[in-house]
């Protein structure tokens, strides 16, 4: 028996002979040369022939080369140095012109490594085409194999043949290498920090590499560049913000340490994804108050860099506000806003409100520290002072209304009392001294009068009679003065005086 194969592609009109597969005596045949379109559907049929007899054609075998193809093994180059293994992987179909798997950058390489001893554990890790395998014990033989995979196509390729290699011992002179290399970034300002236990004179050079270069199959060791401003420095830190020209893309950084003997040592590579490594700083807050609204003005974090942060992080703000009273049971309320201006309503008057704000990025699951607390007091109720004023004025008027008549009445009373007890009338002038003489000394000094040495007895008796009846006919005496005893002018005063004296004695 011999076999004949025919095939055709989807777009072909008729069946064609497959070269190299005519008169096949074995039960297999390689018809790769007939396949040119890897992505098209192909149909193959076969029949048996013997001399002049032919069998009917078999059922048609349909296939798309791309779907049934398997990824072949990659090539490996190994180098054992300084306690680590340097590996270089070349892709399957490396030198082929026509490739089934175009875009070799898509390959993800899977390494499986184990110690060449019994009961060894298999360690599996993803590696770049050019990579360093560390974490290995020195002076030990390890065996490894690599496969190429296309995750998107759910394809896992064949493993390369197993290769075994012995690790060297680690160089002891590398005490001066930079260790603990780490990145600290705040508001898009990036700093690299490292340590060095070697206290002697060491100079550092910080270098960077664009992230995508590790994905290519080319050797990137010559493509490291120095970070400007961090060349030949002695400090153990470097500001590398200047090389972060775009937030889209990774960077690798490493520190080259050079000791006084000009021996250099490279640190491990640190991968930096700018937006993930960066920390968002706190925003600024300013408060303003109007009658019924509290206005919160937020300054985005980062200052001049804030445009970049806002654009890429899609920043939102979490506002916390609460009433600041002595009673610490006040509930803290939260508001989430996307803009830089927020308002709070439902305010209690005459209350101190405090606010703090945090910026966050939902896409990157990052949030900043809270800003400083800012507090502001809401104005008091405008109505209350008016009420107080009105009440005061009314009370004042009422008091005045009541007090005025009272005062008036008191004044009148006072006047009456003063009139009664302390009259202010004046006696007439002609009796001015009258009251005084009545209460003054009952005895008066009299003037000496000339005394005549004669005695008149009748006169004495008369006078005594006059004395007794003096009261009775004093009036009549007075009325008839002229005709009385006072005919003599010289005696007038004298007798008068004596009468007065007599009256005094009687009274």
């Amino acid at each position: 028996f011999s076999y004949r194969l025919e095939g055709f592609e989807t777009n072909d009109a008729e069946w064609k002979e497959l070269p190299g597969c005519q008169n096949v005596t074995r039960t297999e045949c390689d018809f790769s040369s007939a396949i040119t379109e890897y992505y098209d559907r192909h149909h193959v049929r076969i029949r048996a022939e013997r001399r002049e007899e032919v069998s009917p054609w078999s059922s048609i075998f349909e296939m798309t080369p791309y779907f049934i193809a398997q990824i072949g093994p990659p090539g490996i180059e190994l180098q054992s140095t300084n306690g680590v293994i340097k590996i270089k992987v070349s892709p399957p179909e490396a030198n082929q012109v026509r490739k089934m798997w175009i875009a070799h950058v898509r390959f993800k390489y899977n390494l499986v490594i184990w110690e060449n001893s019994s009961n060894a554990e298999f360690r599996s890790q993803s590696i770049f085409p050019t990579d360093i395998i560390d974490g290995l014990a020195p002076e030990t033989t390890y065996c490894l194999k690599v496969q190429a995979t296309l995750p998107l196509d759910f394809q896992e390729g064949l493993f390369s043949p197993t290769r075994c290699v012995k690790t060297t011992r680690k160089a002891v002179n590398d005490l001066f290498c930079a260790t603990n290399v780490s990145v600290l970034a705040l508001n898009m300002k990036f700093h690299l920090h490292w340590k060095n236990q070697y206290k002697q004179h060491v100079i550092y050079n910080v270098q960077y590499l664009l992230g995508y270069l590790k994905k290519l199959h080319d050797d990137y060791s010559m493509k490291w560049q120095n970070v400007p401003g961090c060349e030949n420095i002695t400090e153990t830190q470097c500001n590398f913000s200047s090389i972060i020209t775009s937030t889209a893309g990774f960077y690798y950084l490493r520190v080259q340490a050079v000791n006084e003997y000009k021996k250099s040592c490279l640190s491990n590579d640190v991968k930096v994804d700018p937006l993930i490594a960066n920390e968002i700083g706190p925003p600024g807050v300013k408060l303003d108050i109007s009658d019924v609204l509290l206005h919160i003005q937020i300054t985005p974090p980062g200052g001049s860099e804030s445009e970049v942060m806002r654009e890429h992080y899609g920043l939102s703000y979490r506002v916390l506000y609460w009433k600041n009273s002595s009673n610490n049971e006040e509930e803290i309320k939260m508001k989430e806003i996307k803009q830089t201006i927020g308002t709070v309503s439902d305010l209690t008057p005459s209350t101190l409100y405090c606010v703090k704000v945090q910026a966050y990025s939902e896409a990157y699951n990052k949030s900043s520290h809270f800003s400083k607390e800012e507090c502001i007091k809401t104005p008091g109720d405008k109505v209350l002072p008016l009420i107080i004023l009105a009440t005061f004025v009314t009370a004042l008027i009422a008091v005045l209304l009541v007090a005025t008549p009272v005062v008036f009445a008191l004044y009148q009373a006072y006047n009456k009392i003063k009139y009664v007890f302390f009259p202010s009338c004046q006696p007439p002038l002609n009796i001015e001294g009258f009251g005084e003489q009545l209460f003054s000394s009952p005895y008066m000094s009299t003037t000496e009068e000339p005394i005549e040495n004669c005695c008149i007895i009748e006169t004495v008796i008369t006078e005594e009679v006059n004395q007794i009846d003096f009261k009775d006919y004093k009036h009549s005496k007075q009325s008839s003065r002229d005709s009385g005893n006072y005919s003599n002018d010289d005696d007038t005063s004298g007798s008068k005086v004596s009468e007065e004296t007599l009256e005094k004695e009687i009274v």
Partner: protein
Amino acid sequence: MAAHATPQPCPRHGAPALLLLLTALATALACHHLRPRHATLTWDSLNLLQAMAPSLPQPCHHQQPPSFPDTLLHDNHTNQGAATALHILQHLFDTLSSHSTPRHWDAQARHLLLNNLHHHIQQLQQCLPANGTRFKRQGPRNRLLSIDKYFSRIHDLLHAHNHSACAWDHVRLEARACLQHLHRLTRDTRS
């Protein structure tokens, strides 16, 4: 090269097919929170592409360009938009990182563009499940296949013209068309 009388889904002139593509991929992109990011990334890529490779002073006479697969137009499923975009970006990344790109292209811009594309790819890979679920139906596989076919034709074109400046200019135009579609897509669906 088989000639297809189909509209060009990475076409340089607008077409109804384009709208369908946009709609399909619009509903298809997962990772909603990363959508603004994707829009920015594609926009940056476009700018970098322009900076790297400005138009040629002498226009080239392009032959029949390879046609982008029209099966992409009928995509209705959410998860596959990310896979489709990822596939396109990986091919763009691969093509533009070739050693045979023209010398007159700006090296620094090319570095940044490739870094940008690489980053975009990494972001999209996070959107897809780690182990992936093999597509149950043939449709999605065919979709990715058609993208491979398209880029394979671009590689054939370059090879046939010996990586001439004209061939690369054609590739530049195709790359620009692809990025423009991706950008319009992610921008329009930004919430």
